[in-house]
């Protein structure tokens, strides 16, 4: 868990220089915040893929549940926003408990079973209107508070919150990866049968990774709802929260920790600033092509591709 000098410099720049230089341009700031939201989901998605060996097409389930739990707790029970965000993450974990039975399933079955959950949660959010506001959704969801003189609901304030969340996620990811769970998980990658023989309970480990991934996604979903101040079922469980993170994670390299984040910022900004101007309707086409090209030419993502020249031993997690 050593922190390199460049790492510290990047963190310093992110906390101080970005707000100072770009803070006044709210358009650029909102692009960055949106990219970081995608980055957070991409990180959680990649953690599940890298450590758990599972592909998910239903992370919108965690995102939506986290958002609804946090919004409802702040609006109906008066829970403070920051505490409610953590509870939103806990809510997503609770939702993932329902998915434990499908953990036994092989790759494609798990990937699509989790998608079924996202559909089910969306229909529940629409039908359970006494709590969720139904299809009309929840408007005027409380904003972030002012803390120690910093208005967290401003663009810069929101940026600082999501930045801190991502840093905590990165630290947690590193901790897990270097713990003996991480080692067992890596062993499981090579041979699930072998780990069973040596007495590692692979389903339990997978479940733990699912919880961590769900928690992260839920917290990001909760962050987003207090940032946008609005929530409805279609938006909370939108395919948007699946497609972009997958593209970002695959593009950046889902076997690395920073890859999904770098991928999210790159893909989101290039998509918004370049592709959108080139092909106004249907610019997602480029994202699809990117996904196909990455899987064929460099399934490990861009980060390993860049690093190929000076490949080190620990390229893979």
């Amino acid at each position, binding site marked *: 868990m050593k922190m390199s000098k460049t790492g510290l410099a990047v963190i310093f720049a992110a906390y101080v220089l970005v707000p100072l230089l770009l803070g006044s341009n709210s358009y650029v700031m909102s692009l960055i915040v949106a990219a970081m939201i995608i980055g957070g989901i991409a990180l959680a998605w990649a953690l599940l893929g890298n450590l758990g060996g599972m592909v998910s097409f239903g992370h919108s389930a965690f995102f939506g549940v986290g958002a609804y739990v946090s919004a409802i707790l702040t609006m109906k029970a008066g829970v403070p926003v920051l505490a409610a965000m953590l509870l939103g993450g806990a809510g997503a974990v609770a939702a993932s408990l329902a998915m434990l039975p499908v953990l036994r399933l092989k790759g494609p079955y798990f990937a699509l079973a989790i*998608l079924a959950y996202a*559909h089910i949660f969306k229909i529940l959010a629409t*039908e359970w209107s006494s709590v969720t506001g139904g299809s009309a959704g929840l408007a005027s969801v409380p904003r972030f508070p002012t803390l120690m003189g910093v208005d967290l609901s401003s663009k810069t304030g929101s940026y600082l919150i999501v930045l801190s969340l991502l840093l905590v996620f990165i630290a947690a990811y590193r901790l897990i990866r270097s713990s003996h769970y991480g080692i067992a998980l890596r062993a499981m990658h090579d041979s699930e049968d072998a780990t069973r023989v040596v007495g590692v309970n692979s389903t339990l480990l997978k479940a733990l990774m699912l919880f961590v991934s769900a928690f992260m996604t839920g917290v990001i979903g909760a962050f987003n709802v207090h940032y946008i101040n609005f929530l409805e079922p279609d938006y909370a469980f939108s395919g948007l929260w699946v497609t972009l993170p997958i593209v970002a994670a695959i593009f950046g390299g889902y076997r690395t920790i920073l890859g999904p984040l770098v991928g999210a910022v790159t893909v989101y900004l290039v998509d918004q600033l370049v592709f959108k101007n080139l092909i106004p309707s249907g610019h997602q086409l480029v994202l699809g092509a990117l996904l196909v090209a990455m899987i064929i030419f460099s399934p490990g993502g861009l980060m390993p591709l860049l690093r190929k020249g000076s490949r080190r031993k620990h390229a893979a997690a």
Partner: protein
Amino acid sequence: MSELIMQALYSGVLQGGSYALIALGLALVFGTMKVINLAHGELVLLAAYMAYTVESRFGLSPMFAIPVALVLVCICAVLVYFLISLIRKDRELNSLILTYGVGIILTNAVLLIWSADVRSTSSAWMQDALVFGPFYSMRSEVLFFVVSMALMGGLWWWLSKSWYGRAVRAVSSNRDAAKLMGINPRTTEIVSFVVAGILAAFAGVAIFSYGVIQPAFGHALTVKAFIITVLAGIGSIPGVMVGALLLGIAEALTVTLASSALQELVGMGLFLLVLFVMPNGLFGAAGRRG
């Protein structure tokens, strides 16, 4: 009440016919390659839009679109196969992401070419009512139900009698043994993609003839097809048929007996229930659990 239920059963069966066509294509490819083609629904949609073009441009019945749709969809299906064959490692999971990407490309290509407007046939003949006693439907629904039954009969015959069909079955059940018997798995894989494309082309024209299409519709079709293959269990054509009819009937009965707002919930619920209770599906052989 009984009249209501009779009609629900009938509607469900007709709907199940086209579900079965789509699901069979998905199941065939999964059988030979162990790959779920997440762009399968988009291939179906492509055929539906071909039917739209033929009808709106040339004023012809959507039926005339079938040859064009067959060619186009089969070419696309083979292209998807070709892309998948380029994957070097971890094909089971990487192919999911790859075909998901192909689905995004096709959805947006459809959006660019045909715009976001909703489309459906304007042919009066297709939409006219066909009534047998207490059973009501449109002509197009019955027509394509018959077509899909014929196709499935043909498929069953092909799989059990023809050399290629038997090769597909052999590769599905035991790849290595099939290789030893002199079957080239690559050829059978391509064949299974082409057959899936043929089924998708018919299903697409069918959907245009009795339903409404829009660019984002493909993904929902893939999900439905996957639910059915899970219900059926892999490797069973009668299983897929029964699974499709079951889903169609369950949806129609939900609308009739409970609320139409819950229709989609039933499919998903059925899917999870089968996964939990009988993870090998209603008709499948063992071997899905990890």
